[in-house]
Structure formats: structure tokens, C-alpha cells
């Protein structure tokens, strides 16, 4: 009780203590913001992969026919929610006079893609139709175009004009794509195909690469255009969505088994060809990059952590000063029977309180800044004209603003420990104070 009384008294009377609280709060807030943004970025990076290609991807070394049988087999696995075929190609998109873009063309099964990825959610109008009509002069192929393909984001705000993008729905485009085919005398040659498209909807995923580069077409229409000689359905990859809580490792074993069976029995592929197939989870595909981002996060936290050590020095200096000025109080306490340990506990405990208070303020501040980081960034842009976050550089349109609570807990604990450590030496100094020396009349 006495300790608590003294802590509160020192906190109220010694205003210099507020400085150490401010320093701890500042360091804590900064570390929370840095860790949260990095964590948010890494999570968004992993989630973006899952949203665009599903949980698991089967990527064989070459395109293959009759994918329907494979997707049916995979969908029989209890934890698989859906499997969707994808055919990828590249092309040049003619958007109008002099406007030409190099794009990636994804042939997708519009219905199934919605179950496997977040494709449906990304559509501005939100209506999807499975275009089953053959391409004719009167019926251009319905397509879904990334918003960045149609227009550049505003240079200052980095935001797209959604209304203008929506206005382009219904506009006709010309896509030139093609594939390498066997020509006369078995000579390989590139065969160009020109396809007329009409924009059915505009896709905005918030992931720069997808918005800027990708045009989605119905898979069969793309197959007809790119491989006109092939009469069978054809896919380049299979994207798979797992049910929530699915055991990824166990499911992967089942998927690999299904693929091997399909490739050997249906496609008649050799073991070499089958083994060249990459079957990975979306997270595994990103693992190298995620490891690198994590490393950068640790390095930045280490740098700020070392700089934040000066807060320990500050606590030390302040407590040293308090002990110096409170030697008479200490001597009186000791002369009343308090032991050295009890005296030390007062100061170490007070240090802990300073750390806890600073960490609490820092946590509030850090969480507030993290949650409103996009607003802060916008304010910086408006006031200083400095656009810090651009999707073209950092992949995403918005700064991830999820608080990393695990890190918050770690920083709070470290703040309390650091402040207590800073108070330890002055506390020992106080504990060794001899009342007889302090309370002498002269």
C-alpha cells in the first residue's frame, strides 16, 4: 500500500517522469506501427495470392486437355470446395486509337472461378454471365478487364476513376494473342489470333499487377482462339479452393495422387513429365518473398529497437535524479524499518509502472495510427504533396491497417521490462543508502 502510495505520489509530483512515459510511449507506438504494417503487408500479399489463384495450384509444364475429369476427381476430395481450370496466354490489347497495352489473358470458367477465387467480388458491376456464344462479327466475346488496363490511376491520389471505368462497360476492344503451333514440315511457328472483345465488367482487386495486366475471358473462347485446331477443352493450370480448416498437407497428398492418376492414365504422360508438374499451395508459392519481407521487418524492428534503447537510458537518468532528490525520504523509510529489498522494489516497481503506462499510451497511439494509416498518408499528401504509398510500388491500393496484436503484446512486455531495467541501478543505489549518513544534522 505504501509502495502504491509512493508510486502515485512520484507520478503526480515528479513531472519529469512524464518524459520517460512519453519516450516509452513513442518507441512503443512506432514499433507497433512498423510491425503492424509489415505484418499486414505480408498477410495481404499471401491473401492476394489466395484470392487470385485459390489455395492450391496444379501447374503442369504444358497445357492439357479434358480438364473436366481432373476437376471432378479433385472436387470429390471432401475438403476441396471447388476446382477451376485456367488457361493463360499473353497478348496485346487495342483499346482505341494509339492505345495499346501488353496484357495477360486468363481464360477462366466464370462460374467456377467465383467459387475458387475472389474474382466475383472484384467486379465493379457485379454481374457475371457465362458467354457460351461463339464469336461472330455480331457477338464479340464477353470479357472482364482489370481497371488498370483501361486507365491510369490519378497521379496525385493514386485512385482510379471508377465511374469512368464503369462507363467503358460495353466498349469493344481488339485483343491479339496467339500460340506456337506446328506448321508445315513440323516447323514450329507463331500463329496470331485477333479476337473481338466487349467489356462485360471491370475488375478491381486492389492488387496492382492483376488490375494493370489481366484480361479475363471465358476459357473455351480463349481456347478456340489460341488453339483453334484443338477440339477438346484445354487448361494450363487448375486452381483449387479448400474448405475452411482443411489440413493442407493431407489434402495436398490427395491432390497429387489425383493428378498423377489423371496424367498417367488419361493424358498418357511419362513420369518425367508428371514430376515436372508443380503442385503447391498459394502460400508455398509466395514463401521466398514472404521470408524476405519478414527479414526486412526484423531488421527494421531491430534498428528501431536499438534506437529505442535510449528510452532505457532516459528512465535511468530520471530515476537516478529522483533517488538523488529523495534520499531523505529513503533514509526515513529505512530508519522506520524498511529493508533494502523493499526500497529497491519501490523504484523497480515504479519503473515497471512507468513502462506499463508508457506502453498503454503507446499501444493506443500505435493502434490509432495503424487503423487510420491511410488517412494519415492522405493527410501527408494533402499537406506536403508527398504521395508515400503507390500501388505501382507496393502492390496494393490501400496500406494494410490491421494491428498485429501478437507484436503489441511483445512490445508492451518489453516496455515494462526495459523501464524496470532502467530503474534497477538507481533502485540499487537507493537500497544501499545509509540513513545514518543522510539524516545527520550537519
Amino acid at each position: 500500500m505504501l509502495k502504491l502510495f509512493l508510486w502515485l505520489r512520484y507520478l503526480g509530483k515528479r513531472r519529469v517522469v512524464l518524459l520517460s512515459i512519453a519516450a516509452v510511449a513513442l518507441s512503443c507506438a512506432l514499433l507497433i506501427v512498423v510491425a503492424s504494417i509489415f505484418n499486414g503487408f505480408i498477410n495481404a500479399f499471401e491473401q492476394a495470392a489466395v484470392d487470385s489463384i485459390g489455395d492450391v495450384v496444379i501447374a503442369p509444364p504444358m497445357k492439357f486437355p479434358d480438364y473436366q475429369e481432373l476437376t471432378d476427381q479433385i472436387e470429390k476430395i471432401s475438403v476441396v470446395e471447388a476446382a477451376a481450370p485456367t488457361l493463360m496466354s499473353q497478348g496485346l490489347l487495342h483499346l482505341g486509337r494509339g492505345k495499346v497495352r501488353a496484357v495477360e489473358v486468363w481464360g477462366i470458367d466464370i462460374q467456377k472461378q467465383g467459387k475458387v477465387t475472389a474474382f466475383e467480388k472484384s467486379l465493379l458491376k457485379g454481374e457475371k454471365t457465362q458467354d457460351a456464344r461463339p464469336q461472330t462479327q455480331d457477338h464479340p466475346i464477353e470479357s472482364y478487364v482489370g481497371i488498370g488496363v483501361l486507365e491510369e490511376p490519378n497521379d496525385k491520389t493514386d485512385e482510379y476513376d471508377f465511374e469512368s471505368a464503369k462507363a467503358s462497360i460495353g466498349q469493344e476492344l481488339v485483343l491479339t494473342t496467339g500460340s506456337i503451333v506446328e506448321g508445315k514440315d513440323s516447323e514450329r511457328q507463331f500463329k496470331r489470333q485477333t479476337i473481338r472483345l466487349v467489356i462485360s465488367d471491370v475488375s478491381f482487386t486492389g492488387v496492382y499487377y492483376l488490375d494493370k495486366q489481366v484480361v479475363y475471358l471465358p476459357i473455351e473462347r480463349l481456347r478456340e482462339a489460341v488453339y483453334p485446331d484443338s477440339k477438346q477443352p484445354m487448361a494450363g493450370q487448375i486452381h483449387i479452393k479448400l474448405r475452411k480448416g482443411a489440413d493442407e498437407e493431407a489434402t495436398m497428398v490427395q491432390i497429387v495422387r489425383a493428378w498423377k492418376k489423371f496424367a498417367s492414365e488419361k493424358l498418357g504422360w511419362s513420369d518425367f513429365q508428371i514430376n515436372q508438374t508443380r503442385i503447391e499451395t498459394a502460400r508455398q508459392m509466395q514463401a521466398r518473398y514472404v521470408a524476405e519481407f519478414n527479414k526486412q521487418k526484423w531488421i527494421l524492428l531491430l534498428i528501431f529497437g536499438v534506437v529505442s534503447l535510449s528510452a532505457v537510458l532516459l528512465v535511468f537518468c530520471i530515476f537516478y535524479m529522483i533517488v538523488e532528490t529523495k534520499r531523505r525520504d529513503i533514509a526515513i523509510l529505512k530508519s522506520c524499518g524498511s529493508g533494502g529489498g523493499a526500497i529497491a522494489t519501490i523504484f523497480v516497481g515504479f519503473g515497471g509502472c512507468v513502462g506499463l503506462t508508457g506502453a498503454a499510451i503507446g499501444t493506443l497511439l500505435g493502434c490509432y495510427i495503424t487503423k487510420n494509416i491511410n488517412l494519415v498518408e492522405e493527410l501527408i499528401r494533402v499537406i506536403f504533396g508527398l504521395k508515400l504509398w503507390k500501388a505501382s510500388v507496393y502492390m496494393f491500393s490501400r496500406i494494410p491497417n490491421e494491428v498485429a496484436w501478437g507484436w503489441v503484446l511483445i512490445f508492451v512486455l518489453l516496455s515494462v521490462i526495459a523501464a524496470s531495467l532502467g530503474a534497477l541501478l538507481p533502485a540499487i543505489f537507493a537500497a544501499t543508502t545509509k540513513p545514518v549518513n543522510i539524516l545527520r544534522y550537519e
Partner: protein
Amino acid sequence: MYKLILAFRYLYKRRASYFAAAAVALCVFIVVVVMTVMTGLVGEFKKKNYNFTGDCVVGTESLVGFPYYEDFEKILRGVDFVEAVSPVINSYAFVSAGDSQQGVGLEIIGIDPNLHGRATGFGEMIYYHQNDTSHVFEPAGDKNLPGCVVAIDLWAQRDSQGEYFYDPTPEATPISITCFPLTARGALAKAGTGLVNTKTFYFSDSFQSGLARVDGSVVFLPFDEAQLLCGMKEPISRVSRLHIKFKPGINLEDGCLKVGKLWEQFSDKNQGKPDGILLADVKVQSWKQNRREFIAAMEKEQVMLTAMFVLVGLTTVFIIFVVFYMIVSHKTKDIGILKSVGASGVDVVTLFLGFSAMLGVAGSAVGVAAGLLFLRNINTIEKLLFEKFGFQLWDRTLYAIGDIPSRLDLTMVAIVVCCAVLACLAGAILPSVRAAGERPVETLQVSQL
């Protein structure tokens, strides 16, 4: 003189000042190390961009390009501030190498290697024909085959140290390049025929700019071939850009301004000609403006990091404040004596501010020395960490970064030291004013002694 003596005395005698100096040293050390690495990275990145671009670019982002470039080239060659001009074709193509079953969409750049080598750092970026640009499109084995230069990340693997494996005897691998020719109106030149402009080139050299986006997506072709493939040869020849190098001593902004004026006149004169409307989309940019999108990102990161250090550096100001507050509290009698023998309040403030400046200089000196020592050995330390623990600051197989930059930028160091001293002065100002306000009659009372 007494101020100096007292300041030195406080610095040596008051142990609390050691902590303040330690805090300053710690901050200076971290800031010097991080900013040196960051400044080095930004500087290197800018240099690579400059080497890739040259001084000035006259061009359009449209793949259609612009006409009458030869006339403007002649004008530029006639002025005294331009050293070299290189016309460039820029487009996209499907590229398929060797026995690959699939094409990949890449950027193609058509150049005259000699002109481009003079206008940019192209000659230093090629491997097999380094600084011998005239033979860069001659494949090994048969020099009569049409050659192409492939960006390094498309051709070779990097090891853990960021070094590429170069084949000492490169094969003239066939590379099929397929382009979509566009008319001056941006339409497909051969729409309806089902055929594209395709030509097989042979690997003749690799190109390493050190810029990740370039090194992973570019193929250089001979200018005439690229112009034909992209449909920019006829009826009126077009190019995408003109890269310009200024003569030594020409200021970048002045040079670009002059080129801009020349272009304005040229564009006004020619816009009425066939396809002349394309000239309206052409921009004249310095290399910094041309590569702004990429450079700005790194510069902003540097600004953000600096802002964060300023925030954390506030703690150092607090420490100085507390230490000085403590010293002033202990030295009230000294202050009383000083004032009683005639020292003014300003003298007392000067004494403590001088002391704080000394503390800042001492702390900064230690911080800079430690930073210098660390930076000198930073690459050795990283190498050691990689050998023992597999730790690298950057995964060299992912990032186009070589050694960690460690060259100390003296201007940056001077700024950091000045900021540290200013932080010390800011922290000491309140306690100094308080000291100046001490009245000798109160501090020297017998009861106070």
C-alpha cells in the same frame, strides 16, 4: 574562458553526462549506418537509371511512336550542347527461345548499338562485347546471323552472392521474336491475315543494367529489324524515343529546357503533316523525370525512414533535458557563486548551452567513429553471417543488389552531427534558462548550505 573550463569539467566529472553522450552516440551510430546504406542504395539506383537512359529522353509512351524523328535528330546533331542521339523502338513481343513450347510477353528495344552506346551506358552493361558495341549483334559462331541481346535475368541464374553464371562460350541460341505491327493510327497493321511479323534472332550477348524490371523483361534488337517488326518503318518511319546525351559541362535542366524548346518549334512546324498529330503526345524529359516512377519510390522510403528517426530521436532530447535538469539542480551553488562574482544570466545560459554542444559533439564523434568502423566491415560481417548462419541482408537471388553500400557520405554525416548538436541544445535550453533564473541570494543562504 571560465565557461569553457566549467563545460569541460562538467563533461568529465558528471557521470550523468556520459549517459547523455551515450544516447547521442547510439542514435548517431544507427542513423549514420542506416542512412549510409540507404543513400548508397538510392545513389546506385539513380546511377543505374542514368546509365540506362542517358541525359534526356524525347519520346512517347504510346506503342505507336512518333514520325519525322530523323529531322529532329538532324536538328539535335546540329546544336552545340548535344553529344549523341540514339533513336529507339520500344514495343512488346512474344519471345520464344530454343525448344520452348510457350511464348512469353517481353519488352523489345530496337537500337543502333553504336549510337545507343554513345548516348547511354549501354556499352558497359553488355557482357561479351563490353565497350565494343559495334559487334554486339553478332552471335558467336556465325557473325552473319541476326543477333539479339537478352536481359540477364532471362538468360542466366544468379548465385547466392548475386553473381551470374556466364557461359564462357555462348551458343547462338535461336530466339523467335513475334511482334504485332501497328499502324500510325494504332490499329493492327495486318488485321485479318492471321499472321504476325516473326523473325528468328540468335543470342549474341546479355545485358545487365542492375534494374530488376529491365533485367527481367527486355530484349534488344537491331534498330532496323525492330522497326520492321513493329510496323514502324513504312509509310513514314516512326520511333518510340530519342535518347540524348549532353556534352560535358552542360547542366541537365538547362540542356533539357533547350531540347524542349527545339521540340516545341519542331512539333508546331510538323503537326500538319501526315501522322503529325502523333507529335503532340511526345514529351521531353530529363532522365530523372523519365525514371521518376521508380526513383521516387526509393526516395520516399528514405524520407519515411528519416521521419521515423526524427521521432525516435526525440527521446535523446528528453535525455539531455533530464541530465541537464539534474546537473543544474546539483550546481545551484556554483551558479550562485558565478552570479555573485558578476556573471549574468546570459553567461549562465551560454555556459550550459556550450556544455550541451560539447556533449553533442562528443557523442556524435563516438557515434560516427563507431558507424565508420561498422560500415567498413559491414560486407565482411554479412559474409560471415551468411557463411555461419545463412543470413543475408538481402537475398541476392531475388534482389539486384551487390555489396551493401558502405561509402560514407560526408554531407549526410555533417547533417546528422548538426542535428545531434541541435537536439542537445534543444534539450538543454529549458534547464539552462532555469539555471540563469537562479538568484544567488537564495542559493547561497546559510540555510541552503
